[in-house]
């Protein structure tokens, strides 16, 4: 189990996934000041929401590389032959993906918060929200990866699957910046629901893919 998690973490970092996430996140965040204009007060007000939207988009990037390669190369077959249950494999993938995905996102969020001139309280709330929300986002990414594995144009379909389901995370995460602790609690609840359900959804999708 730990070996599975470590394999996924190593694969994401070795594949340049971390720098890609970081760079993409920052680019999305930088686009908004260009679009909205250099009004510092306005930017500070929308900054938290923009960071959350950027996190969602960054979560989409690695979706195609999470499950599809393992399905193609027969890695999932080999796991099943060794008696690993697919929900456990999916849970290990979520843990591995989160370990590879959350640190660059948090780092990029910190940099973006400085760019938007968020005050320290808002920055702390955004980072706390991301710490709570990214496990749910990682679970959603793995489930989406499993559902779209083997499809042509999987990237586009993945966006249609993942983004609507991530809206509650966005609402409560961004809402917590104004609403405080209540928003964070609801965010935690959404994140837990995603974490609990996603391994089974992913396992069912992987099983269909393997047949």
């Amino acid at each position: 189990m730990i070996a599975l998690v470590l394999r996924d973490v190593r694969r994401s970092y070795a594949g340049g996934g971390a720098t890609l996430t970081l760079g993409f996140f920052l680019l999305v965040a930088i686009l908004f000041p260009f679009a909205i204009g250099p009004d510092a007060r306005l930017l500070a007000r929308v900054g938290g929401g923009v960071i959350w939207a950027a996190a969602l988009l960054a979560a989409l990037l690695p979706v195609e590389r999470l499950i599809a390669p393992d399905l193609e190369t027969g890695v999932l077959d080999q796991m099943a032959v060794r008696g690993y249950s697919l929900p456990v494999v999916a849970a290990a993938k979520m843990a591995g993906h989160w370990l590879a995905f959350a640190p660059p996102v948090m780092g990029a969020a910190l940099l973006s918060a400085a760019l938007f001139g968020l005050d320290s309280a808002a920055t702390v709330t955004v980072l706390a929200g991301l710490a709570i929300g990214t496990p749910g986002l990682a679970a959603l990414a793995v489930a989406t990866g499993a559902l779209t594995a083997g499809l042509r144009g999987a990237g586009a379909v993945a966006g249609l699957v993942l983004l609507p389901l991530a809206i509650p995370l966005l609402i409560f995460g961004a809402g917590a910046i104004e609403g405080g602790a209540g928003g964070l609690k609801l965010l935690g609840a959404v994140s837990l629901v995603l974490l609990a359900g996603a391994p089974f959804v992913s396992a069912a999708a992987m099983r269909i893919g393997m047949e």
Partner: protein
Amino acid sequence: MSAALALSDLACRRGGRLLFAGVSCPLAAGDALVVTGANGCGKSSLLRMIAGLLPPFEGEVALSGRVALLGEASALDGDRTLGAALHFWAMLDGVADPAGCVARALDDVALAELGDVPVRLLSTGQRRRAALARVLASGAELWLLDEPATGLDMASIALLEAAVARHRERGGIAVIATHQPLAVAGAATLDLAAYRVAEAA
């Protein structure tokens, strides 16, 4: 090593078509089964059924011992070195001495000097032998080899045949689906063409 495998009255249905039915075959320790038949007659499906990856449409598979599957793909991470990729699977297999097992397996398939080369740089035949090394290092009693000789040269086919023979001497079972003639002494053969089901009109 105590291995046994019994197929009783197996039938396979893929994409709404019945591929074969009524396949029965008992295998004891040291036995080998060579599965032949035309493309698409269900050889790979039969192996995947034995491995537990496909539920049988009818009948059942009873086996004792651990299973190692050599499928179409090698299941080795392309960006890792051959030694590290094999070590990962040997660890998951829970063998006593993963490093030693991998070294011996690489030796057996004549890839010992390529242990430090990334898997993606290996040729087709080398990758096939690497996948065979994964099976060798697993220490499993029951080998399921799907077209193990694809892409292998004459010398490598001899290595494959020797590995299967050693495995059977130790009391293991090998089920081999193949097109190419392989020298497997005293193996039972199963021609899946004989089990084809005529489509009902």
